[in-house]
């Protein structure tokens, strides 16, 4: 039977429509509630501008970190077979399901002033990660990493090893194979993984506030500013929220063809 002409039972149609409304209503609320006439003014408010600037810098930094660590991890998971592979994979996926606040507590225990690594960094190198933009990057990269790893790993598996073998018979050493054959083959997935990781990093709240704190201009990213300003200057908070929504929709639109392609 044709998918489009199929009759849908009411028991499915009604909850499905409710589900759609449930997702759409808050978005509609954001748009209708927005102080459109003061929007530009709200976004150029010093507090908002500082938060935006910090968010852009830190999320970009987090994406770079997630990329640099996630790409090798994805390659290892897709190409190597070793003892404990699935256990290691599960560990890397933990930040995806972990409550972000717990992630922040964990980061404190590792990289905080008295943490496992943080203590060493502070005592010997004078590097303090908490309450610094670097701490924000760390917190965002932590939660974003698994998104990059799953996306790229799936693409590497789908690409297979056939082309890599062909490259080897043509004299390509492992690094050349990676650079000239493997990475071009998974290029679109790299972009999609980076976009997902960036979107996740941009929205990070719990781990950031727990680990890096809420210091204006240093660690107060857009989500933190929205939460803080909701009482004091609600129109600025709404304007920032609207901007985040626009960013999310843009990322989704960029990934749309990929997701639709997978669903079919």
């Amino acid at each position, binding site marked *: 039977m044709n998918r489009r002409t199929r009759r849908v039972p009411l028991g499915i149609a009604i909850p499905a429509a409710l589900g759609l409304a449930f997702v759409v209503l808050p978005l509609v609320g954001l748009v209708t509630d927005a102080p459109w006439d003061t929007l530009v003014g709200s976004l150029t408010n010093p507090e908002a501008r500082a938060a935006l600037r910090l968010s852009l810098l830190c999320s970009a930094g987090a994406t770079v970190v997630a990329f640099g660590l996630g790409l090798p991890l994805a390659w290892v998971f897709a190409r190597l077979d070793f003892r404990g592979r699935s256990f290691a994979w599960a560990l890397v996926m933990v930040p995806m399901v972990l409550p972000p606040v717990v992630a922040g507590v964990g980061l404190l225990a590792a990289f905080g002033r008295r943490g496992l690594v943080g203590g060493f960094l502070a005592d010997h190198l004078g590097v303090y990660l908490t309450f610094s933009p670097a701490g924000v990057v760390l917190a965002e990269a932590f939660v974003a990493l698994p998104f990059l790893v799953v996306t790229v790993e799936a693409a590497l598996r789908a690409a297979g090893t056939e082309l890599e073998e*062909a490259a080897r018979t043509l*004299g390509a050493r492992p690094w050349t194979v990676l650079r000239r054959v493997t990475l071009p083959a998974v290029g679109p997935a790299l972009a999609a993984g980076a976009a997902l990781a960036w979107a996740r990093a941009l929205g990070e709240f719990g781990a950031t506030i727990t680990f890096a704190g809420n210091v204006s201009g240093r660690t107060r990213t857009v989500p933190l500013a929205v939460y803080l300003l909701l009482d004091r200057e609600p129109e600025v908070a709404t304007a920032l929220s609207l901007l985040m929504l626009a960013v999310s929709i843009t990322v989704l639109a960029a990934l749309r063809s990929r997701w639709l392609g997978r669903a079919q």
Partner: protein
Amino acid sequence: MSLDAAVALRLGALELDVALTVPTGGALAVLGPNGAGKSTLLRILAGLRSADRALVALDGTTLDDTERGISVPAEARSIGYVFPDLRLFPHLTARDNVAFGLRTRGIGRTDAARRAAEWLERLDVARVADRRPGTLSGGEAQRVALARALAAEPALLLLDEPLSAVDVASRATTRSAMRTAVTAGPGDAPTRLIVTHDPVDAATLAECIVIVEDGRVVQSGSLAELAARPRSPYVADLVGVNLLRGTAEGGRIRLDGGGELAVVGRTSGPALAVVHPRAVALHRMAPAGSPRNAWAVRITAIEPLGDRVRVRVSGPPDLVAEITATALGELALEPGAPAWAVVKATEVRVLPD
């Protein structure tokens, strides 16, 4: 100088154990049914797969010696490989695909592009140089893949079912283009190893044929030699003759598959009887008189073959008969029908097994 290889590998149901030698500049075809281990053999030679035991030397250089723990990585072997699925790089143009092997060996960008273009010219596909593999026809893609494998002037060229991606209509022209291309380069022609299950490919692309079945070499020689004395039902089927195995004793062969075969001459012991399909006559009724070889059989398949027809019958013994279309019409035979198969003793060639 030559390629000398002896490899053994257990892989699931496959027990590969093959030794072969190809003189430098020569061509050997490895022919066998699917799953015989032919492709696995090539993968081991290319260094893409390890073997349980391997001793491979190419022109005096050891590539594999499992006993001494030597295994040259794939990228360091002077080998060109044409895969059955070609494996052209989809993100590179035809020219860049061909230049790939030159670039990895340290040849500059301009020089590599020029030499790649020359190879495309030699294979008569210069017109597709700027196109991506996805837009090429099967024959064009095959020629680009061959150009890519030849461009770095390997000492050994491995061709795995090289014509499988080519449609039947352009197979003959692609095949002859391949034959000229392998010797058309500026250097010496590479030693070739061709894996195929098409005897025409084997006979046209190589001087010598090795038959591999179930991981073992069962026979080798030219196609004419294989046809003259096929040593397995697969080879017999390949060259189109009936092959019956049994034990000879006093002018008769007791067939392994059941039944007896009267032959001329007195041999004894294990024997192979070769019967050309044209020597098998078919009758509807039990033949009059007393031909010494007559069996009640059943028709299993009828295949047209030009103005003649190949009729497969199940016995014992199972046979292929080749009769004229007219004779088939007169006999009014169809699959499932009973018939009598008759072979004159003088038409049976007996070989010791």
